[in-house]
């Protein structure tokens, strides 16, 4: 399989994740879309690393995975705090900062 096949697969998964982030009302559903997008980026990084025989892509995707896990943990902690205060995690109803 050529490099272009993997990059196209990554672009497709990225587009699907973007669709999820834009259309989901639930904050947890939005986070799932962000997960898909970050995964697509990892596919690209590893594919470039494999086809250029450069370990930098693998190191990069290791760092991305670690940062993503921290981001998910913090994001879900924020979601739980919002749920405690506002009793909802529907993104449309979280308009506390609206002027």
């Amino acid at each position, binding site marked *: *399989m050529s*490099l*272009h*096949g*993997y*990059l*196209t*697969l990554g*672009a*497709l*998964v*990225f*587009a*699907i*994740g*973007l*669709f999820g982030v*834009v*259309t*989901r*009302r639930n904050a*947890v*559903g939005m986070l*799932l*879309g962000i997960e*898909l997008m970050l*995964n697509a980026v*990892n*596919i690209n990084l*590893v594919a470039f*690393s*494999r*086809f*250029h*025989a450069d*370990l*930098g892509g*693998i*190191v990069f*995707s*290791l*760092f991305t*995975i*670690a*940062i*993503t*896990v*921290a*981001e*998910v*943990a*913090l994001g*879900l*902690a*924020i*979601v*739980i*705090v919002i*749920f405690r205060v506002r009793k909802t995690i529907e993104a*449309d109803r979280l308009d506390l900062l609206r002027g």
Partner: protein
Amino acid sequence: MTVETVGFWLVAAVLLASSLAVVLTKNLFHAVLYLAVALVATGVVFLLLESPFLFGVQLLLYAGGVVTIVVFAIMLTERLVGERITQTSRHVVNGAIVSAAVFVAVVGFLLQAGAPAPVTERPDQLAGLGRALVGPYAVTLELLGVLLVAALLGAIYFARADD
């Protein structure tokens, strides 16, 4: 058709189907389970790209850790049984247009770029990875540790009892 090509098409089909299920299914809990399938399929893509170490990391951290955390969050914010767990989507047409535009832009860029020369000899990945992490990327690795500690402190701060 080589084994890699057949495997690629199989894994790509599974990955795309489960990704679509993540963003389209009504039940939020099912969406998380489909996300687990998509994450494992991504790990198999890493295997096809001859990175077995990343496959292990993907299984441990993503399919093991992230999915568990998300399930906990859903259990704390929704009732597992009952109708509240269903979720609706909004602006479906607009979202489809935006993501299709992004996809077309990326693929258009890909079509312009030429294919790289095939690489025949590859260095030992695991040994090279270990040397890179303590050599040129040592400072980045330390910064990552600082980030993880900061995230841990932030999560503890958010989860503290009200008093």
